[in-house]
């Protein structure tokens, strides 16, 4: 079963690393076809981001290692899509 899409909650310090460096590091991992980084929180010292990575057979551990090598920190894996078909997640409403 190949992982096709992951959504990660990532934090970094405000000054370093640059977001472009994080993107470059993820892009250098094999099988990554595209990614998006959305800043969703800017604190006094830290920046919170949602990183979406897409590919055919993503190597989760290698992606996390690449991100952490830049100096950013992966807090959680918030969404994962895998299999032959891309399924649009249905969010439950209460």
């Amino acid at each position, binding site marked *: 079963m190949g992982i096709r899409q992951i959504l990660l909650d990532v*934090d*970094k*310090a405000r*000054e*370093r*690393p640059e977001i472009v*460096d994080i993107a470059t*590091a993820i892009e250098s991992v094999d099988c990554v076809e595209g990614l998006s980084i959305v800043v969703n929180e800017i*604190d006094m*010292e*830290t920046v919170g981001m949602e990183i979406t990575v897409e590919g055919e057979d993503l190597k989760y551990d290698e992606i996390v290692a690449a991100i*952490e*090598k*830049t*100096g950013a*920190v992966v807090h959680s894996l918030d969404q994962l899509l895998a299999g032959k078909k891309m399924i649009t997640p249905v969010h439950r409403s209460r």
Partner: protein
Amino acid sequence: MKKLLKDQLFALLLGLIDGILTVLALATGHVLKHGETPITLSLSLKVAFATAVSGACIYFFSEYSRQRHRLIHAEKQLNLATHGRLATTHIGRQILRETLWGVLISSIFNFAGGMLPLSTAMIFPQAQWVAIVIALLMLVLLGIGIASLVYGNALAWSVSLVLAGAFVAFIGYKLNVV
């Protein structure tokens, strides 16, 4: 090159000011008390080299430890459980690289800041006090430069730097180091 100098402005100013002030401290006594013994090229090189080397060591240890401390602070902000983790990432190598560039730039400007006033004393062996005047003039120009960079008061910056220079020169005169 322009970007490097812009990024390393702190190192540049530190080197230049340190070079000029150290020369004022070391050479003022010699120039004013032993004016008949001219400052030679060898003496100028020794003084400028010594200030550049000591400045380089001071810059490396203070700047690198400051940057490492900032990494520890960032680790706390990011809730990392283990200390020293960020230093093993690209950031760790980046701050070491930046510090080493800073050391190089600081040393070059330190050497230049020391060598320039002493060179004028070699050109005018009969009026070696020119070295002190040139050093103080360099501080005035530096003050104007810093003021334009930080949109500050040029007169205040120049006067402050010249006062610092005059104070250091007075100490150097009293101690008569060289």
